C-alpha cells in the first residue's frame, strides 16, 4: 500500500468502510474507472477486509461448538480453504463484503475491476451474489441489485450470468414461506433465464436435521454440495463474487 497525493490510504479505507459521503464516493468511483492502479489499491484493501472476515467466520461461542461440533469442523475447514483461495488468486474479480460498503458501489467496482482484469471477455460478466442473513432489508438488497443488473444487461448487448447463493440464515430467501421476497425471487427466476439460485447443501442438511423434516424450497432452486465449494468453484472460473 502506498499514498497517492490525491487518494491517501486513509481515504480508500474510508471508502471501503462506507464512511465517505455520496459525492466523495462518486468521485472515487469515477477515478477507479479510469485508473487501474487505484482500482488495484481499492481491491487490495477490500481483499484484506475479506480475509479478516473469513478468518473469523468460524469463531463461535463455546456452547455452539459443543452442540454442533460435527457440523462446524468441516465448515471451518472449507472456509479455511476459501480464505486460502481468495488469497491465492491474483485477479481482482474476487470480492466479498458486508454491510459496511453499499452493495451498489461494490457491484460497480467489481464490474469495473472485471473489465480491467479481463479485457478479452469484458462483454460477458459472471457474477455471484452471496447472502447468509435472513434480515429482510438485506434480502431485498440482493433482489434489488439482481433485478437492476438483470434488467440493465437485458437491455444491452452485453451478457450476464447471475447466480444467487444462499447459506446459513440466508436460506430464508429460497424457503417457500410466502414472504414478499420469496415471491419477488420467483418472479425474477421466471423472467430471466440467466438467473440461477443455489442453496448450500450443508446448511440445508443441518436445518433439516434440526427440524426433523424436509425444507420446502422455491421451484428451480439448485442444491450445491456446500456454499464454500461453490464460491471457490466459481472464482476459479473467473466469476466475480460479492457477499451482501
Amino acid at each position, binding site marked *: 500500500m502506498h499514498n497517492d497525493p490525491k487518494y491517501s490510504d486513509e481515504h480508500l479505507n474510508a471508502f471501503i468502510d462506507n464512511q465517505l459521503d455520496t459525492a466523495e464516493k462518486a468521485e472515487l468511483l469515477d477515478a477507479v474507472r479510469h485508473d487501474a492502479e487505484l482500482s488495484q489499491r481499492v481491491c487490495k484493501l477490500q481483499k484484506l477486509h475479506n480475509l479478516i472476515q473469513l478468518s*473469523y467466520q468460524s469463531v463461535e*461461542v463455546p456452547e455452539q461448538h459443543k452442540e454442533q461440533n460435527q457440523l462446524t469442523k468441516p465448515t471451518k475447514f472449507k472456509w479455511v480453504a*476459501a480464505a486460502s483461495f481468495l488469497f*491465492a488468486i491474483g485477479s481482482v474479480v474476487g470480492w466479498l463484503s458486508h454491510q459496511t460498503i453499499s452493495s451498489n458501489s461494490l457491484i460497480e467496482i467489481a464490474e469495473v475491476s472485471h473489465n480491467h482484469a479481463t479485457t478479452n471477455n469484458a462483454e460477458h460478466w459472471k457474477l455471484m451474489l452471496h447472502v447468509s442473513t435472513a434480515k429482510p432489508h438485506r434480502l431485498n438488497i440482493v433482489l434489488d441489485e439482481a433485478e437492476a443488473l438483470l434488467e440493465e444487461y437485458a437491455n444491452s448487448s452485453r451478457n450476464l450470468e447471475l447466480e444467487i447463493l444462499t447459506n446459513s440464515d440466508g436460506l430464508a430467501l429460497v424457503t417457500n414461506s410466502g414472504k414478499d421476497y420469496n415471491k419477488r425471487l420467483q418472479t425474477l427466476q421466471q423472467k430471466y433465464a440467466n438467473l440461477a439460485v443455489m442453496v448450500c447443501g450443508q446448511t440445508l442438511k443441518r436445518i433439516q436435521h434440526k427440524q426433523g423434516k424436509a425444507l420446502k424450497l422455491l421451484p428451480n432452486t439448485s442444491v450445491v454440495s456446500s456454499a464454500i465449494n461453490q464460491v471457490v468453484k466459481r472464482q476459479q472460473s473467473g466469476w466475480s463474487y460479492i457477499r451482501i
Partner: protein
Amino acid sequence: MNPLEFICRSPTFKKQLAEMRPRLYKVAYSWCHAADVADDLVQDTVIKALRNAHSLRDINKMNSWLFSILANCWRDYLRQRKQTDDIDECIFTNDDTPEFAQERQNITDIVQQAVATLPQGQRQVLSLVDLEGFSYAEVAEIVGIPSGTVMSRLNRARKALAEQLLELKEENVLTNGTHIRVVK
C-alpha cells in the same frame, strides 16, 4: 425511563442480548485470541448489561452500547493483566509450540496470528470495523478515542497486515497448492 417502560421492553432487551452474544464473542475473540478469555469477557458483558439495562436510553443503540461494555471489560482485563504497559500499544505474542506451528499451515490461523500481533489499540479498532461494520464515529464512542485516532489506527493496522499477509501470499500460498487442490 420509567419502570413500566423498562418492564415492557424487557423481553425485547433480553432477546436482543441473547442474539448479540455470538457477535460479542467473535469480536472478543479477535481481541484476545483465547476462547476462555473471550467467554469470560462476554459473560461479564452480559452480566453488566443486565445490571445496567436502565442506563440504555435508546434500544436502537443497543449494539454499540453492548460493545462499549465489552470494550470496558477488555480494558479492565488488560489492566489486571498488565499494570505497567500502555495497553493501546501492547503487542501480544503467542508461544510458538510445534503444535501451533503445524496449525499455522492454514490461512485462517495465519491471519488470526497476524491480527493477534497487532498492537491492542489497532486490533480493537480493526475488529469493530471489519467484523462488526461499525462506523468510525461509533468506534470512537465505543473505545473512547477521537475519530481521527480510529482512522490512523485502522490505517496502521491494515498496512501492517498487508505487509505480513502479502509475504504470506508469496511464501506460503502461491508455492503451496494444497489449499486450492483440497477444495476442487
